């Protein structure tokens, strides 16, 4: 099977993730969509590693996973704090800071 299909899938997942970030309201879901974008990038990395016959892409994928894990720690901490103080994790409610 051609490796191109993996790239199409990666681009599709990335687009779904990006659209989700822009459309969804719940901060947790927005955050999940961001994770989807990161994973789409990981798929692209391993596909390119296979295409180029070099291992750098796979290494990059591991780094991405570690960074994504750190991002989850920081992100959930922030979202949970917000939820505890407002009883809502909707990003539309976060609109105190306005012109």
């Amino acid at each position, binding site marked *: 099977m051609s490796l191109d299909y993996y790239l199409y899938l990666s681009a599709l997942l990335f687009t779904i993730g*990006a659209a989700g970030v822009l459309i969804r309201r719940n*901060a947790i879901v927005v955050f999940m969509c961001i994770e989807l974008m990161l994973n789409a990038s990981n798929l692209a990395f391993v596909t390119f590693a296979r295409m*180029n016959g070099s291992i*750098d*892409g796979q290494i990059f994928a591991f780094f991405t996973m570690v960074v994504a894990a750190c991002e989850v720690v920081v992100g959930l901490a922030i979202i949970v*704090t*917000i939820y505890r*103080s407002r009883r809502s994790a909707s990003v539309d409610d*976060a609109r105190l*800071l306005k012109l």
Partner: protein
Amino acid sequence: MPAPKIEYAVLAPVLILLAAGVIAVLVEAFVSRKYRYVIQTTLSFSAIGLGILSVALNKDVSGRFAEGSVAVDGVSVVLQGTILVFSLLGLLLIAERGFQSFTAQASTLPGSADEQRALASGLQQTEVFPLTLFAIGGALLFPAANDLITLFVALEVLSLPLYLMAGLSQRRRLLSQEAALKYFLLGAFSSAFFLFGSAFLYGYAGTTTFEGIKVQISTAPGNDLFLLVGLATLTVGLLFKVSAAPFHSWTPDVYQGAPTPITAFMAAVTKVAAFGAFLRIFYATIGGMVWTWRPIIIVVSILTMAIGTIVAIAQKDVKRVLAYSAIAHSGFLLTGIVAFNKSGVEATLLYLATYGFTTLGTFAIVTLVRDAGGEVTDLNRWSGLGKRSPLIAGIFTLFLLALAGIPLTSGFVGKFAIFSSAYESGNISVVIAGVLASAIAAFFYIRIVVLMYFNDPQEDGTSVMIPSPMTAIAIGVCALATLILGIFPQPVINVIDSLAIFVAG
């Protein structure tokens, strides 16, 4: 298989700061609360001091280290030195204890009994120090990264602590938490774009090192689909970080909501780090694609200047005005990238150095204007400040004039250098836009000056705190630097000119 070779001496600035960050976490865990503040400040200041020393020792180094993943050359030495000096000044503001900027305990609910108890017992959290140290470590690595993996990791090490630091404000905690949420979601979103771009650049070049990408661009035709997709998304990610339009919308909210010392730190340090990486990528790595990226950066630059200056006019909050001014300055800085010549690189470095001092100073003064409820950021309540405390208002005026780019201040030197480099390269459009934007910007800076001097003070309890030595030193250094760089800039320009050379590719 030979073990990887790590040149510890050359990488020392980054390693010292990150090691200090790790030690600071241990201090948080094991040292009694009574001694934490003293130990944390000593540790942080000495780490930055050692960092500055080791950067100075690197000044003649030029090469790629740690198996080619970090480039230490004149440009990165200048940038790392600048970052460390600004970090030192920022840390002075963060360590200020004459008045509290940070929440006693970030985990307590705003307005809850727990929060009251934490405040009443005089708790002073010190988590902000390890976070700051990690952010500085990431900022030092970001402009020196010579590899997409290192670049991405450095970006995250810089950003993740900042997301948390934005949420630590003591007053108006809901605003602060909201700022943290917005910063985090948009920052992570832009990181994802950045990562996707990295993937496609890797797919194009078959390697993640910058010189590999550069070689591939110079040999292969420049219209490869992978290359273009990679460049486009990577650029989006970077433009987010430097808060260029149309990716600037997080900046005013985060600058306003974050505790002011953190805003000061962030405004100076992340801008230097992000533009450093911008230079290394656009000038030293994908320079072969200049005809492709230049028109885009020109449009972004003009748009950023326009939005930054025009929207700032309508703002009523001093931190938001300064945030839009930061956006406008990103636009000015992008003209140095557009110039794409050696004087453009030098001018960008000079501009970053001048701008950092000024913006740190302005936010330092914002921390001083307070009433019983904390900082007063409503511009109307700043009226008559010149009559109430002439010295602070005078220094603030100096900073505002520098931001506007009036001669005899550092802002003029920086703007002159950066616009003339763009003019030299024949990109007249950005220069015209830049000069027009500067003229519009002068309007709202001068408006604040008028407000401070020609209006009567309101009797609403707004007063200017007498700064403790820490904040006073920070403001003094910033004011002096703004004046000296404005009147005798030549020594600094000479240093930058002699150092601003990228490692040969």
